[in-house]
């Protein structure tokens, strides 16, 4: 059952100049998909189309079968930068999606505190963003996207600015949180290892088109061992080849050697 279906969607800035060019893609409910590609190939634009922040100039994007026309409360979005409100505490930032809809209740605060615990920020809920490190700010942004318990989470290179170790920690946290709720995820990145580690399926985008897809068959839950397994390395190599524009080819299971 496909949860998100992108159906020949295009986005033209002017006639004849497509940033997103007839893209077909489906994400089954509960799956974690990554979208990789060089800078400027249209990843952010595709993600904004899926979020309803932009409207496709042709084709359609459907969530649970109905076309996306505007941002929906069922969809969470994590921007490339944490985009926190500097004048509010971490807790109030996490509560923002709720407090825009209604007055937050005591149980909402408890839920926000729990989420901050889950992303490893217990005790920092009273801090303002400027008093948090980059990694901590990204964690707040993820907690904020999750507080409404969205069925679909869209993330735009959320960890690109972080150091390798913080990034790995956040990847593990994200996988855990999404598995917990069965969240469907579309995650944009330009990091090959990140895509392989996170995804069930990776789509490769170039010049507004999807030109390759790769299924990732690493067992879950994935941990540090998975990152150094031969299978992981083989999949990274296959993805790299695909990004270089090599023709699609299956990755045999014994490709480790």
């Amino acid at each position, binding site marked *: 059952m496909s949860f998100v279906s992108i159906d020949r969607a295009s986005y033209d800035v002017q006639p004849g100049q497509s940033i997103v060019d007839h893209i077909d893609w489906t994400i089954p409910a509960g799956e974690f998909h990554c979208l990789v590609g060089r800078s400027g190939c249209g990843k952010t634009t595709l993600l904004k189309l899926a979020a309803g922040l932009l409207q496709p100039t042709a084709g359609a994007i459907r969530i649970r079968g109905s076309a996306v026309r505007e941002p929906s409360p069922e969809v969470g979005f994590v921007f490339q930068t944490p985009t926190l409100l500097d004048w509010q505490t971490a807790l109030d930032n996490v509560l923002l999606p709720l407090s825009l809809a209604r007055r937050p209740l005591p149980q909402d605060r408890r839920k926000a505190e729990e989420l901050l615990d889950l992303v490893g920020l217990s005790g920092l809920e009273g801090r303002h963003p*400027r008093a948090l490190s980059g990694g901590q700010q990204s964690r707040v942004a993820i907690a904020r996207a999750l507080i409404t318990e969205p069925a679909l989470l869209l993330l735009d290179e959320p960890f690109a600015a972080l150091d390798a170790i913080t990034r790995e920690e956040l990847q593990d946290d994200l996988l855990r949180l999404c598995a917990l709720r069965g969240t469907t995820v579309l995650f944009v990145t330009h990091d090959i290892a990140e895509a392989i580690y996170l995804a069930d399926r990776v789509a490769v985008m170039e010049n507004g088109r999807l030109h390759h897809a790769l299924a990732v068959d690493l067992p879950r839950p994935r941990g540090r061992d998975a990152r150094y397994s031969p299978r992981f390395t083989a999949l990274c190599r296959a993805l790299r080849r695909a990004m270089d524009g090599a023709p699609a080819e299956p990755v045999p299971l014994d490709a480790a050697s």
Partner: protein
Amino acid sequence: MTARIGSALLLVLLLAAWELYGRLSGIPSLVVPLPSAVLRTLWDGLTSGFLLPHLAMTSAEMTLGLAIGCAVGFLTGVLLAEVEGLRRLLYPYIIASQVVPKLALGPLFIVWFGFGMTSTVVITALICFFPLLENTMTGLGQVDPNKRELFRMLRATRLQTLLRLKIPAGLPVILAGVRVSVVLALVGAVVGEFIGGRTGLGASIIAAQGMMDSTMMFALFIVITALGMAFYQAVTAIERWLLRRHWTN
């Protein structure tokens, strides 16, 4: 700390040199009064209570003018920042009115509002209006596009976006406008009184000039400077308090 002591010492040194030069050269006090005479006049004016009603009047005009000018400037700024059509319609006039020397309208306000406090308050408010208008429009206009997109994603209403994003995000710029207005408000109040005041520090300067009392004029300059600094410090303190969340630790 040492820098402060240095600054204070420099002032004392300059005043001493001035006093010495005044006494030795015998320059008439109408041209340049002695610092000691100025301080004595200032002290007498304050202790006898002669200066107090003038100080109170100028402070009141400044406070009222600043409050009215800033409030109207802020609200107009919000309106123009939010309503694109209105902004396009009115912007040329706003630019044009920026360059009109507002103080030159003083005599006209006297015709409209009569001599006294109202004219001065109106001039002061008019002068304070523009920095607030300008800075509010700038502050609300330069909100991070990512944050705006976030609010769109969270389906915030236009009013929510204004109150919970644009105004808090633009607050530092808006408050910088208030700081500019404070300095202008003092000029507005004093010059307003030059033109149409009976009471007030500006009116007293004109009165002292009529009596060729340079010593009193210098004493009044000191009072006006102190008043301006007090207002500026107060506004800076309020600004720090309002922005405490913007730059914590």
